[in-house]
């Protein structure tokens, strides 16, 4: 599990920082971005096995970030975070190549299982 390197992208700073700490405790190397622009900059310079991306953010939306990652052919797997009313965006994101989507508030065990599955599927695809 400690092989996993993850980028959490969400404009709710307290949410991502607490979640990052929890993932760190579980041995998952976690970085945080609080908007789409910052996330894209970080992905330019670092590789992440999984990018966990909130769909609705100020500035560049999660789906736009996903679109740009597709254009750059970034190898990271993407998991989207959606709210009650944004399931439609979650499904749209999956059509665009996201591995899956999860609803907030999250269950941390479900998130970790999904991240491991996404990274493993992605590695198999790359090979």
């Amino acid at each position: 599990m400690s092989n996993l390197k993850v980028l959490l992208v969400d404009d709710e700073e307290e949410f991502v920082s607490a979640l990052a700490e929890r993932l760190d405790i579980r041995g998952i190397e976690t970085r945080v971005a609080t908007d789409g622009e910052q996330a894209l900059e970080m992905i330019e310079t670092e590789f992440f096995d999984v990018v966990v991306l909130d769909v609705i953010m100020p500035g560049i939306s999660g789906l736009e970030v996903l679109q740009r990652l597709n254009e750059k052919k970034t190898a990271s797997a993407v998991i989207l975070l959606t709210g009650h009313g944004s399931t439609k965006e979650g499904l749209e994101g999956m059509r665009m190549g996201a591995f899956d989507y999860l609803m907030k508030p999250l269950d941390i065990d479900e998130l970790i299982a999904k991240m491991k599955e996404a990274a493993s599927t992605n590695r198999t695809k790359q090979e």
Partner: protein
Amino acid sequence: MTELQGKDVEFFGKITASMTHEFKNVLAIIKESAGLMEDITKIAPLSDSRHQEKLDNALKTIKNQLNRGMELSTVFNRFAHAPDKSIAEVNLHQLAGQVVKLSERFARLKRIRLEVAPESQSDTSLNVTGSLVWLQMAVYLAIECGLNSLPAESVITLTSESHEGKKCIRVQCTGEASDPAQLAEAFKDNSSWVELEKAMQALGGIAGWLDNAPGVRLIFG
């Protein structure tokens, strides 16, 4: 409903839905922060076991209330999105469950229990088409008639069913006031009953009395 009134409902729904999204973000932050506290106390428990027990109990309470908040937020969000489409298809069992959740506080204040009967296997595709706002309002008004007419400790059970080829929600009351004729009179004395009849008419259906049982059947056609 006039076009302007329709816009009112649409506006109200849009703002309410947006606020429920914000509420969900608040819950997500509380959940992760409480989870982090729990993680830390597992790694380094407090030296006084009594304090640890109190902390564990407080975290358990936060978790339970978070689950309650999430459930309320989901139901409320669905309610707020009801005006998104003027006409939508809805499953009657799900409609009954949604309105029961929305009405639970009113029922609790009257000490009346609301229940949704399990969906029967033969009635799993009881879908109707109409305004989601009006459909929810009709089911709510039927419940409200019961809440205004029944004594405490009564039970109101909603069942989606097919009756004489029509798609229906059966609203049956059990408890002390279980005489069908007397209960029908009490229902009719309610201002909610008049509103219910109007709502059902607007939906192209009717509200009728149950045969030999206390309660009402909403017949959607």
